[in-house]
């Protein structure tokens, strides 16, 4: 049905002829080059994962040091939670970089399934961003750390504004941008996923 006439007999202004007649580069890698490339890729991914872990640990050490220096219970708990959050974040991010074995799936799945599962991964992250990024830990830690100081400063409103004003303004701006953006993204992805699922249902025997 689609091959009404062979490619070489297509009229010059036919889009398929335009497409097929474009100049292409002769690209080929030897098996040796491919092996080397695959090993390089694996090494690079591991290095990135290790860097992420090191960065996470450095931030952890910073908060842990502050944890040791602070003597009040509530701020200490807050700092402890934030430190744990750093470790969790480093772990989650390094998991993303660590070289996986995705190839068999990528090849066995139809392009429709593969596309849908990629979108689902992104949707799930947007949907469970609190859990996946450990935001609950972070916010709880920050609140436990900040609230006692905030209560103490209630008697001196100017000090309160100077010490906590910039922090809360930045936090509010971040929340106002980040969460609606995640929500919008999630809705858009969900819509597209549903469209793809409908296609899959139609193709089911």
């Amino acid at each position, binding site marked *: 049905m689609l091959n009404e006439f062979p490619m070489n007999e297509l009229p010059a202004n036919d889009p398929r002829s*335009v497409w097929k007649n474009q100049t*292409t580069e002769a*690209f080929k890698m030897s098996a040796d080059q*491919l092996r080397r490339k695959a090993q390089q890729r694996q090494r690079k991914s591991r290095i990135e994962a290790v860097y992420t872990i090191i960065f996470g640990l450095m931030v952890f050490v910073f908060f842990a040091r502050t944890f040791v220096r602070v003597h009040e219970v509530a701020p200490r708990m807050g700092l402890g939670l934030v430190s744990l959050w750093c470790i969790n974040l480093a772990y989650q991010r390094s998991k993303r970089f660590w070289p996986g074995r995705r*190839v068999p799936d990528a090849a066995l799945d139809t392009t429709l399934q593969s*596309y849908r599962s990629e979108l689902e991964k992104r949707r799930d992250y947007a949907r469970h961003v609190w859990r996946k990024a450990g935001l609950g830990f972070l916010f709880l830690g920050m609140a436990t750390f900040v609230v006692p100081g905030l209560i103490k400063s209630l008697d001196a409103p100017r000090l309160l504004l100077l010490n906590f004003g910039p922090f809360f303004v930045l936090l509010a701006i971040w929340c106002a941008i980040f969460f609606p953006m995640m929500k919008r993204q999630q809705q858009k992805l969900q819509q597209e996923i549903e469209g793809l699922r409908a296609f899959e249902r139609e193709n089911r025997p």
Partner: protein
Amino acid sequence: MTTFAVRGPEPISAEEVSQDSLYEQTAEDYGPSLDRLARAYELDPEARRDLLQEIHLQLWRSFAYFDQRCSLRTWVYRVAHNVATGHVIRQRRIRDRLVSIENIETVPASDQVEFAVGQTEALERLSALIQRLKPLDRQIIVSYLEGMDGNSMSEITGLSPANVSMKVHRIKNILRRAFQERTFEERRFEEGGHHAK
């Protein structure tokens, strides 16, 4: 002859030889098609070369698992499209602007490229159209342009033959319109030139 210096003294297994020979056969048979496929997903030459390299690498890796459950052609195109789709999905800004083939007409006219006059411009126009499409529609249009039949497209994408043929019909209309506009404009241009003489 290929040497496997990276592996050192380790012997190369039969699977690896078959993996290499499958890759070589694929690069030979589908090299130009893969290059065109990469063009459909990435316009920037540098990034396109990287994408093409990634496609070749993933294809070679995938051949370690090739069990002939589907034809080699289907396998090659699935891997290539899946890798390229991943490339598009990662670029969020681009991903958000993509439209489906059903909505392509609603794209503002100002976004469209100038009417093409020659083969190069026609190709640019075609590429610009493809670049606006969502991955699944892009896969269909590329397969159509490569001259595949409906069953092959269905096997690669996982869409039903009815859906494929509906999409192809739509693609044909859009392309026909785009290229008729071109010939009409060309004709008008030529006529204008002729009268001026």
